């Protein structure tokens, strides 16, 4: 057994993934260190979102393995992986449109605590969950909108809720698929500033196109291109890396 | 040996009827994702056109068939333009309820005009009786059905593969949004396809009147068969619909002949199993 403190939290070994005849990954190897704030960048079609799908179990690789905390999870269901401590947000908001943020967060907390089994006990008696939901909404600046139907919230607030739902699970690993997508530059920075504070103790893997955000908030960066990990390094090195220029500029 | 062949033949004849009846529904469901239960009512309409034309007007049987096609086609075109097109893109259940309501209305309307009893159908003498073919004694009317069904199947498959309009239909089934973006007048394609599909249902209703009988409960009785054919065959495929219709026709006739006490059990069970095994049908695109 390796020491869990020093071993990587997430590993992909020789992942191969194809949709029908379309090969997305061939021999992808990837390592994510515990506590990192790690960005994945790369042109469209590089397989970034597919990679997140493989880690969360919504997609299954053709071959190869995914390891979480040193344990092979390739054949575990998405739900098992969530229980193990992996949470994600989606590139396009995936919310409970007709419910309000409070109910949405309570749903997430009830799942985390295993309190959503068949019962005749009113939600109002789950005091701890409600208090925690309330505190979480305050943290994300959604307290004033807690009882507003989600689909009527402004887009920026919905984006925050998207993150709050994943965050409510208290994950060890948080996967954020373009969290700032659709936000203005100012809003994007605001979101990342909040995230940096909120997720200080969590390993975060995020996909992001805005290089300013990446270089400012990531402490490591991976560059994906055409289904392969091109390079992985610190933001400073990435900025000047010749292969990165090649990937983006095609020279 | 000869009974097996006869049962098989009768099953195929029945299957051809089901094919003509349901092929329009399959294509429009594949194209617009619209669940039109009232398709069965268009069939009934065709049956009553036959009744009016042959019994009340005294015109020949062969004239009533194209008339059934035209009348049912026109009515379905009107219904599509005035009602259905506002419900494209709503959920399955809304469409089911809407068209179920239309079935109820069509049943009441038909009862109002023609009463609730089965209609007497007379077909020309050259289509009655039996004929010896290759040592088998086959009913002439069923032979006629098989011939009509086969010709229509060929025309439809050929038309879809080889004509310009067929290409438009295929594009719309494949992805209506992209087809629209490429400058195709999808509204027109929808409407024409709907009319042809409804017309074919009407034709099938007229053809089936002699064999299945025609009364106001016709839509509810055969709705289930239509849905089975479409969902088992896979929406939007003509060959899938043909295969499923023939399979269902043979299974139903054989089931009723060899094991009358379990009857419909056979086909319903097959349906449930196919749906669990391949939710998009045997030849469904997304299976």
């Amino acid at each position: 057994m390796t020491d869990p403190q020093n071993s990587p939290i997430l590993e992909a070994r020789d992942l191969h993934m194809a949709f029908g005849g379309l090969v997305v990954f061939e021999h992808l190897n990837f390592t994510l260190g515990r506590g990192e704030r790690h960005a994945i960048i790369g042109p469209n079609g590089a397989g970034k979102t597919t990679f997140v799908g493989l880690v969360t179990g919504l997609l299954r690789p053709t071959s190869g393995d995914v390891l979480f905390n040193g344990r092979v999870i390739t054949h575990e269901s998405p739900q098992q992986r969530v229980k193990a401590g992996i949470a994600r947000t989606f590139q396009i908001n995936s919310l409970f449109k007709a419910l309000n943020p409070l109910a949405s967060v309570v749903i997430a907390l009830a799942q985390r605590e295993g309190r959503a089994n068949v019962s005749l006990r009113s939600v109002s008696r789950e005091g701890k969950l409600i208090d925690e939901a309330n505190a979480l909404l305050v943290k994300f600046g959604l307290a004033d909108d807690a009882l507003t139907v989600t689909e009527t919230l402004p887009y920026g607030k919905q984006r925050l809720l998207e993150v709050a739902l994943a965050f409510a699970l208290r994950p060890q690993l948080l996967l954020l698929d373009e969290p700032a997508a659709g936000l203005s530059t100012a809003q994007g920075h605001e979101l990342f500033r909040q995230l940096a504070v909120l997720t200080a103790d969590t390993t975060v893997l995020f996909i992001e196109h805005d290089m300013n955000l990446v270089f400012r908030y990531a402490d490591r960066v991976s560059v994906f291109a055409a289904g392969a990990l091109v390079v992985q390094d610190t933001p400073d090195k990435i900025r000047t890396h010749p292969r990165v220029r090649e990937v983006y500029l095609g020279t | 040996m000869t009974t097996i062949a006869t049962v098989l033949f009768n099953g195929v004849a029945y299957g051809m009827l089901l094919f003509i009846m349901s092929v329009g529904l399959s294509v429009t469901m594949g194209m617009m994702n619209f669940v039109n239960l009232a398709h069965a009512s268009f069939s009934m309409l065709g049956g009553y056109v036959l009744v009016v034309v042959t019994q009340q007007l005294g015109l020949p049987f062969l004239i009533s068939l194209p008339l059934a096609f035209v009348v049912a086609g026109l009515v379905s075109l009107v219904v599509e333009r005035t009602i259905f097109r506002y419900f494209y893109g709503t959920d399955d259940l809304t469409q089911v309820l809407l068209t179920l309501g239309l079935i109820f209305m069509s049943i009441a309307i038909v009862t109002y005009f023609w009463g609730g009893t089965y209609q007497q159908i007379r077909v020309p003498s050259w289509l009655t009786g039996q004929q010896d073919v290759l040592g088998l004694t086959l009913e002439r009317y069923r032979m006629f059905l098989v011939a009509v069904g086969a010709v229509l199947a060929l025309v439809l498959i050929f038309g879809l593969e080889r004509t310009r309009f067929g290409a438009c239909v295929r594009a719309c089934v494949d992805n209506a949004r992209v087809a629209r973006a490429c400058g195709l007048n999808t509204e027109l394609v929808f409407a024409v396809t709907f009319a042809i599909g409804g017309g074919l249902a009407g034709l099938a209703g007229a053809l089936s009147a002699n064999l299945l009988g025609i009364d106001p409960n016709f839509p509810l009785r055969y709705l289930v068969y239509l849905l089975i054919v479409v969902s088992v065959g896979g929406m939007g495929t003509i060959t899938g619909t043909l295969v499923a219709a023939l399979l269902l026709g043979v299974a139903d006739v054989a089931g009723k002949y060899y094991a009358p006490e379990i009857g419909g059990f056979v086909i319903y069970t097959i349906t449930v199993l196919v749906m669990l095994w391949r939710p998009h049908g045997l030849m469904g695109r997304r299976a």
Partner: protein
Amino acid sequence: MSTISEPATDRSTPASQYFAGLARWRVWEILFWVALVGLFFVPDANLPLYGQIVIWGLFAMSLDLLLGYRGIPSLGHAAFFGIGGYAAGYLGKFGWIEPISGLVIAALLAGVIGWLTGRLIQRVSGIALLMVTLGLNLILNDVVHRQSGLTGGDDGLQGIEVAPVLGLFRFDIFGRTAYLYALAVTFVLFLLARALVKSPFGLALLGARENPRRMIMLGAPLERDVTTVFAIAAAFAGAAGALLTQTTQFVSPTSLSFQRSADVLVILIIGGTGRLYGAFIGAFVFLILRDWLAELSPVYWYFWIGLLLVVMVAFFRKGIVPSLEALVRRVRRR
């Protein structure tokens, strides 16, 4: 994990007030049930009809758990109504004449078969789901039709005996006992359903209705929950079927026909989904209207039911109860 939940530490936060408010009984809710009891005391009231309305309401409410709260449409819900109805019928025919235990057994049987059905359909959706539920309904209907030696075929099951409720209240020809019995059973089951939908499980059902993919990524056991709610809905439908059998001492294949599956769907849609009360309001409107129309034009009344359905779907897709709620909210805001 503690099994005893604690009240919110701060009861004055809007959050805890919100959920407490959801669970609280409203005045109109109490009035609704009082009115149903009150009908019993109205002289010359058509109690057999009102009893039917209550039973249909219960039946539609069971579908609401499935469709309104979990978003699973079923074209074959009458199968469970019929299973409960026939189970109660056989019990009464073969000597088990105590009604309450008979009702419980019938409901449990329907629930078990519902659970098995739920296992079958837990991964299916869309048109395939409609087809599978319809197909299973038709299979059952077909079996009951054909095994006429066992089921009485189209003539239905005759000679069903039911003992007095609690050994005291005999079923009378005016339907007085039948009405109170149906109302009492329905009220108890309504209380269970109400508590269920306001529990964290009920909230999880709503979540899965709104967004199954998100529920997966929250670690929710989606498929198990589908099976569970299917079983519960089936048990409730079975109880409704058993009630109808016991109060009329008769059950026939119409109780599990496709027509009945369609009718209960229509009732729920008219009343409105996801409210529980929509089921009862829908049953009231549908049955009163059906009675009235059938008297007006015995042959063509289905035209008006069809037209009603089309108009509802086109203009009041939400149904009566949610539309009324929206109206009340608008008036209040003014």
